[in-house]
Every structure is written in structure tokens, then in C-alpha cells.
């Protein structure tokens, strides 16, 4: 077992990034014109990186599987983006954002990376406003903020419930400017299917044109993956249908270590599933927890009456409701971090208090907020004798202004009106903190291959705080990678154009073609979705919100068996060299079937509970923290980075020991 070097620069944490930028090698503008960079993925990380690298003068080739870069899944992020601006004067600072993120991640992230993230967070807001991102403002014309889980300040900037959309359209606009200049060559409807390594360095990719099915070779001096997370290994998640691990997994197979695959975020506020046909789950923004109160009935007889339709939740008296987050965590209440809120919901539902037919739902109730805002408005408007009806009317308009589009979305999906009856929510897979291992430069263990945004593992530890994914994506793409990649490329200025006419490209292309042809020629009896759903079931039941040794061992065996069955019996209609959506899915599911096994192996290795990873064997017993997750810093304060050696079950573990010099390791208490 080797140890890994994160290449963290020397110096005090506050100065590391500044000193690094002062000293890093630069590439002169004339030489940048001779250097090509491939960027795969056009979400916040990939899109912002492609635009910035092109602005700097590099030749960028950008790839996305969607029909336009504007549709990358960052677009679906709702709530907001964090930045240590302290516009509210509530005590925020770079250090506090740094501290909150390390603590929120349950002390499993790399201090130096997180501090850098907190430092550049303020630049992001400035940059986005300059790009024309229409953030929410108050009546004085200045930017508004809201609070998110796990913190005690208001540092989240937002654009209605569509912050991800607006930030992505900002990055897309910056890309468009470079596409118009010819500095970005855009490849829409293209999927990366392999990484090409020449003399130990990433020198290109094999991509499939999803319209024609053609297999293409693309070369570059460096390859950047901004390909997002792998939550769809669970089949059901809040990810887009096309979100996949393929680019990252092929890179892993080519030598990049995969870090902390078991660190998955199960988001507490999603719309519960309604049937077996369900194709995806929909998130309700965490911002709703600013005003919504989460509860289940305190009495089992009320639960039964609700499930059988004899009782409405609004008819349950206050004293018969269990606001379990407020009860268990009085300091943070409904704004505890996501992992804590999700486990608490599961605990109540496992105890039989779930409020829908499947027993997997809790209430998110806005009645109190509507009255509170209504009374405030009545006072402002001087309506001293406002009736209850009038107060509710005033309150509803405030709630509508804040969350209107989310309420509409809920109503469209469930046909329930959340202004009148509490929402029903349940946790769902949302984000993956794990990903390709990268050093401080964001380079993977393959020279010249970088991973940014959700595709890497670095900043969020074992649990990501709300509104931090957008921050990390844009930080990596706009402000970090453009510096760090220069240091690497400064040594590549004499290389010249990389030819695609080499044995390495030929081998990778042949490999890709062989896999595609074998899938379409398999002529089995079961659809791709059949296997994907089976995999999802194993993952959810044995690698979900709560994990134990026996379940994880079973999961490894079952996934390996399912993978064998997939290759024997999968049916993929159509041909390999034409538009074929089933073939696209088949390739992605084949990779999920390998990743899933590594996921379980990683979870098995980590016999501690931290963040989103909860091992039943590792809980506090007795005392005020009874039943809470028990972290084991003595044995597990490391990053697990797995090396591929032929089969996921044979992956070799490398450890990066985490050092905490600026933040004291403590139990994460939100009580």
C-alpha cells in the first residue's frame, strides 16, 4: 500500500494559494496558441474551464453528450451558491466558510483545497455579476442572501430557485464568445469513451459522435474531465437521465485512482417515489428548510389513519406532531446538514412513522411560515385587524415570491397543493463526493489528465454542504485550473501538435469499437434498464443511507453476478454506427456495474461512520450523542484512492493521510 502525495504547497494555509500563484510557471501567449486542451463536459466546471482556457489563448476542444452545452446537469441546481462576501455583516469570513466546509464534510477533505475554495468564492460572485447573471436583489439594489444547512450565517446567493441554470447560462455565454472567436471547437452530442495515454501522459480521447455513431480520435496536450458525478449508479437519483461515470471510469481503468467512491450524498428533501415505473427523482431545494418544518405524527394510530385516507395532516394537533429535527438538534433544527437530516428521516420511517403508502415519506410543512410572514406583512401594511384568512393570504404571497417555482413543480408532479397541505418528502441520491483522485493541481494520477467539479473528490469530504457544489464547479473552472494547468503545460511548449496516427490511438479506438460491437451483437433477452434497475436496488438496499459489513459483502457478490449476467443476456437493438440511445445507455450501465462493486468495497473498507457514509457498526453509545454517527480519526483519517488492476474487487488501496493543522478535529455536533 503506497501513500499518495497531494502536492500541497508549503506555507501558512492563508498564503498557500497566493504563494503558489506567485511562483507557478506561466506559458507565454504565443506558445498558448500552439497548445490544445480537451475539456469533456460543459457543466459549471467544464464550461467555465473551457471558456477561461480559451480566453487565455489555448485551443480548446469541448465535448458534451447533450445537444447543447447549455443543457449540462448543473442547470438543475436550484438553491444557490455560497461565497464568503459577508454582505449581511453576520460574521462571515473566508476562514468561517473554510471551517464550515471542513466540518460539514466531517473532516474527510483536504484542508488546503478547501481553503483555496473559500478564498476564490468571492471572485465567483463578482465574475458572475459582471457576466450578467441576474442574482436576486433587495429593494436597495444590492444582492440578497439566504441560509443553507449546516451553517450559522447567510452566505448563499441565488437566482429564484434556478441558480444552477443562471450560473450555467453565464458559463455558456462565456463559452459562446470563445466559440464565435474560434478558440473553442464545440462537439455537441459526443461522448468520451476512452482516454489515450502516450508515454505516460494523457494525449487525447476516443469519442463517439452520438448522431452518426462514428468513432473519432481527438488529440491534445492535456485532457480535463468535468464530467460530473455517478449518482445514477443507484438508477433512481436526482441526476439527469444521461449523467454517467463512463468518462471517469475509463480514465480510472487507464490508471487514474478513484477516491472515496462510497461517499454519496443522499439529499433529504426529494419528492418520494410513486411506483416501479419511476425513472428519476426530483429534488426540492434545501432552501425550503429555511421556512419549512419537518415532522411526522407522534402517534402510530395517526400514521395509519393518514395512510388509509381517514385523516388529513392539517387536522393533527401540534402536540401530536413530532418535529424530530427540532427535537433532536435544537441548535440547528431543520437546518442540520443533509446527511443528518436524511438519516433522521430514515430513522422515523424505519420506526413506522412514514406518512405515505410506501411508508417512505415525511412532512415538510409551511403553515407556520405562512402565518409568520402574513403577520409581518399585516404589520408593515398597517392592517391591525387582519383576519386569519387575510393573514394567510398575505403570508402565501411571501412564500410564493420565495419558492413559487418549487411549489409549482411539486404540484405538477404530485397534484397536491403545498400552500394548503404539507409537502411529502423523502431522501434520494443527489451528489457524489467521491470521484477521481486529484492533487492540489487538480491533476489525477495520470499525467496531464485533470478532474474538476463533481468528477473529482477533493473539497467536500464525506458530506457536501448545500450551495457548495456550484461554488466548487466554478472555482475549479474559472479560477483554479487555469493557473495549475499552466504549470504543467509550460513544460510542453516544444512538443508540437499531437498526432492521432499512433499505436496508442489505434489500440484505444479498436478497444472502443470492439466493446460497442459486442453489445449490439449480444442479442440477449433483457433490456438495459432491467439491469440498471437491479443494480439500483442492490445499491439502495445495501450501500444506501445505512451500511453494514454483511450487506456490503453481499452487494459485492451480487453486483459481480449481475455484471456477468448483463454481458450474457443484455439486448441492445440497432447498430453500433448510427444514432442508438439504447447503446449509449448500455455502455454507461456496463461501467456502473463495475463502479458499484468498487463502491461497496470502499464502504466495506471504511469501518467508521462519517458524513454520508454511515456504518451500523460505528455509532455513539450513551451520553448526549447516543445513536449518532461515530467517526474514527485514529484509523480512517485518510482518503481511499483505488487503483484499477483488472477487476473492481481486486482494486488496490492507496492512502492519502489527511492532516488537520488549522482546524481541530472534533465531533460534528449540531445539537
Amino acid at each position: 500500500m503506497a501513500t499518495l502525495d497531494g502536492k500541497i504547497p508549503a506555507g501558512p494555509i492563508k498564503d498557500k494559494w497566493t504563494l503558489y500563484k506567485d511562483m507557478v510557471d506561466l506559458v507565454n501567449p504565443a506558445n498558448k496558441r500552439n497548445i490544445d486542451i480537451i475539456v469533456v463536459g460543459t457543466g459549471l466546471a467544464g464550461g467555465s474551464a473551457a471558456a477561461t482556457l480559451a480566453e487565455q489563448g489555448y485551443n480548446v476542444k469541448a465535448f458534451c453528450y447533450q445537444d447543447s452545452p447549455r443543457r449540462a446537469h448543473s442547470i438543475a441546481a436550484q438553491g444557490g451558491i455560497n461565497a464568503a462576501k459577508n454582505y449581511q455583516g453576520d460574521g462571515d469570513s473566508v476562514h468561517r466558510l473554510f471551517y464550515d466546509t471542513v466540518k460539514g464534510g466531517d473532516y474527510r477533505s483536504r484542508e488546503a483545497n478547501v481553503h483555496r475554495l473559500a478564498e476564490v468564492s468571492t471572485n465567483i460572485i463578482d465574475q458572475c455579476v459582471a457576466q450578467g447573471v441576474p442574482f436576486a436583489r433587495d429593494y436597495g439594489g444590492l444582492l440578497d442572501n439566504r441560509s443553507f444547512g449546516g451553517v450559522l450565517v447567510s452566505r448563499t446567493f441565488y437566482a429564484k430557485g434556478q441558480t444552477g441554470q443562471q450560473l450555467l447560462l453565464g458559463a455558456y455565454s462565456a463559452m459562446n464568445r470563445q466559440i464565435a472567436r474560434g478558440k473553442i471547437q464545440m462537439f455537441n452530442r459526443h461522448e468520451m469513451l476512452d482516454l489515450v495515454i502516450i508515454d505516460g501522459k494523457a494525449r487525447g480521447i476516443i469519442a463517439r459522435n452520438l448522431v452518426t455513431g462514428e468513432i473519432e480520435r481527438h488529440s491534445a496536450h492535456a485532457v480535463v474531465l468535468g464530467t460530473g458525478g455517478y449518482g445514477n449508479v443507484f438508477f433512481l437519483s436526482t441526476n439527469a437521465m444521461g449523467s454517467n461515470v463512463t468518462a471517469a471510469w475509463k480514465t480510472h481503468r487507464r490508471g487514474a485512482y478513484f477516491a472515496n467512491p462510497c461517499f454519496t450524498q443522499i439529499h433529504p428533501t426529494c419528492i418520494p417515489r410513486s411506483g416501479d415505473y419511476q425513472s428519476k427523482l426530483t429534488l426540492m431545494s434545501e432552501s425550503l428548510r429555511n421556512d419549512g418544518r419537518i415532522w411526522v405524527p407522534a402517534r402510530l394510530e395517526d400514521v395509519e389513519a393518514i395512510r388509509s385516507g381517514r385523516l388529513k395532516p392539517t387536522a393533527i394537533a401540534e402536540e401530536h406532531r413530532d418535529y424530530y429535527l427540532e427535537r433532536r438538534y435544537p441548535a440547528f433544527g431543520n437546518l442540520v446538514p443533509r446527511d443528518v437530516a436524511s438519516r433522521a428521516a430514515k430513522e422515523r420511517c424505519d420506526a413506522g412513522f412514514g406518512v405515505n403508502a410506501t411508508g417512505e415519506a415525511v412532512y415538510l410543512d409551511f403553515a407556520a411560515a405562512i402565518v409568520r410572514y402574513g403577520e409581518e406583512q399585516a404589520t408593515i401594511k398597517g392592517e391591525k385587524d387582519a383576519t386569519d384568512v387575510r393573514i394567510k393570504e398575505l403570508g402565501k404571497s411571501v412564500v410564493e415570491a420565495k419558492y413559487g417555482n418549487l411549489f409549482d413543480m411539486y404540484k405538477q408532479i404530485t397534484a397536491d397543493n403545498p400552500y394548503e397541505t404539507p409537502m411529502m418528502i423523502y431522501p434520494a441520491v443527489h451528489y457524489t463526493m467521491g470521484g477521481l483522485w486529484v492533487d492540489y493541481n487538480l491533476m489525477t494520477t495520470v499525467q496531464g489528465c485533470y478532474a474538476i467539479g463533481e468528477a473529482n473528490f477533493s473539497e467536500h469530504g464525506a458530506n457536501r454542504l448545500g450551495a457548495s457544489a456550484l461554488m466548487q464547479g466554478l472555482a475549479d473552472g474559472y479560477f483554479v485550473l487555469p493557473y495549475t494547468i499552466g504549470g504543467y503545460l509550460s513544460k510542453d511548449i516544444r512538443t508540437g501538435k499531437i498526432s492521432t496516427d499512433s499505436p496508442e490511438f489505434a489500440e484505444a479506438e479498436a478497444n472502443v469499437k470492439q466493446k460497442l460491437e459486442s453489445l449490439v451483437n449480444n442479442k440477449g433477452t433483457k433490456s438495459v434498464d432491467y439491469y440498471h434497475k437491479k443494480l439500483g436496488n442492490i445499491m439502495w438496499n445495501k450501500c444506501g443511507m445505512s451500511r453494514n459489513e454483511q450487506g456490503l459483502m453481499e452487494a459485492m457478490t451480487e453486483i459481480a453476478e449481475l455484471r456477468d449476467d448483463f454481458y450474457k443476456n443484455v439486448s441492445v437493438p440497432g447498430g453500433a454506427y448510427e444514432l442508438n440511445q439504447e447503446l449509449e445507455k448500455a455502455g454507461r450501465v456496463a461501467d456502473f456495474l463495475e463502479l458499484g462493486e468498487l463502491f461497496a468495497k470502499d464502504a466495506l473498507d471504511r469501518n467508521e461512520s462519517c458524513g454520508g457514509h454511515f456504518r451500523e457498526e460505528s455509532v455513539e453509545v450513551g451520553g448526549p450523542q447516543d445513536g449518532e454517527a461515530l467517526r474514527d480519526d485514529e484509523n480512517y483519517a485518510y482518503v481511499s484512492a483505488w487503483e484499477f488492476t483488472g477487476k473492481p474487487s481486486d482494486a488496490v488501496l492507496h492512502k492519502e493521510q489527511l492532516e488537520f493543522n488549522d482546524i481541530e478535529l472534533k465531533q460534528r455536533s449540531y445539537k
Partner: protein
Amino acid sequence: MDNMNLTLKIWRQKNAQDKGKMTDYNVTGISEHMSFLEMMDVLNEQLINSGDEPVAFDHDCREGICGSCSMFINGEAHGPVKGTTTCQLHMRSFSDGDTIYIEPFRAKAFPVIKDLIVDRSAFDRIQHAGGYISINTSGNTQDANATPIPKENADLAMDAAMCIGCGACVATCKNSSAMLFVGAKVSQYALLPQGQVESKMRAQNMVAQMDAEGFGNCTNTGACMVECPKGIDLSNIARLNRELLSGSLT
């Protein structure tokens, strides 16, 4: 209702060169809680299991924001429910025994690629012509709060910026005009101080590209606004015309 039987009449077209035709299918066991695309998943699973090719359609986020899905359902872009994308449309809007017509978004500038998938890259090219503010990423732009923006303008800019680029406006318009799409982008920037510098040129360049792509003209019918899943207002077209006119006068 948990067990609806439906007749689907779906546009099948093997590729861009193929002539294409409507084909009939039956699906059974459809629940009212399914989304429209989940109903399509049921159909495709049925087709795969019987050895046929599934119907190709664009879709991704399935939560109404990415703008991928693009079906013309019973003569309406994104189907019968106002303010809703195809992926957010649920089967409770239909009844047992219904016949549903499903076609691609049709326009000269949106050629069919396969079945229900159309090529909307013309929208991207319009954005390349001016859908941005020309600033570099430096980390040295002025503080985000240095220029206050009246809340009203910020809110109107946000309303315009909500466009998801799905193309329902084009598919709906009898002239296949893209004025609502272009108007939304031009308006977003015209309403913000950061966008002022390039405002006039932007309108001209984007409209020139729109014309070059083969989109038709606007005759103020207003169908685009009615069918837009994000409720982009017609006033954005008026603002675009204002920018265009004042730009051509200077």
C-alpha cells in the same frame, strides 16, 4: 387511475434523409402518476422486448429545466398543460382510451435527426452571434455590489433569463419565428447595466443570425408566449424590437 390503455400515433423517421411517417402503438397499464416520458419508457421497453427499435427522443433532466425534451403532443408544444415541459407533464392529464398524437418540434431551422429528435443547434449559433457580455475571467472585476441594480430590473432580467432554449416557441409559431427566444436573451442583458455597452450591436447580430438560420418573422400572434413552458413574456419581443430600432438609427 392506474390502468389506462392508450393509442399512440408517433412520428417515426429513421434518419434525416428518411421521409418518415406516423405509426400506431398501443400501451396498457399506464398510471396517472407517470410522467409522459415514463409512459414513453413503458412503450420503449415493450418495443425492445418484442425486438423492435425503441422511439428516439431527447430528454435528460426530467425536471423541466434542461430544455432537452421537445414533443409536439396533440398539436401543442409540450402538450396540453400550460407552463409545463413534456417531462413535467403527467398522465393524469389524459384519460383511459385516449388517442395521443406525438410529433417532433417542426421548423425549417430544426431538421429532424431521428424520430422525435430534432437539431436545434441553430439556437446555439444565434447565441454565438452575441449572447454574451464581453468580459474575461480575471478575478479582478469590480465588487459584485459596486453597482446597485433596481430590484424591478433585476427581476425582469431574471424572468427573461428563465428561457430553457427548448424551442417550443419556434415549433408553435406559424412562421417558425425565434423572436421570443432571441428577445429573452437580448432583454436579459438590456435590463442590466453590465449588458448596456454592447446592447445595440448584440440585438443586430443575433437577429442577423436568426434570419440566416431560416427562422421566420414575427407577426405578433402571441402563440409562443402561450406555449412557452417558462412563461417568457411577449414584452421581450417588444424590447428586442426597441433595441434593434434604436441600434439601427445611430
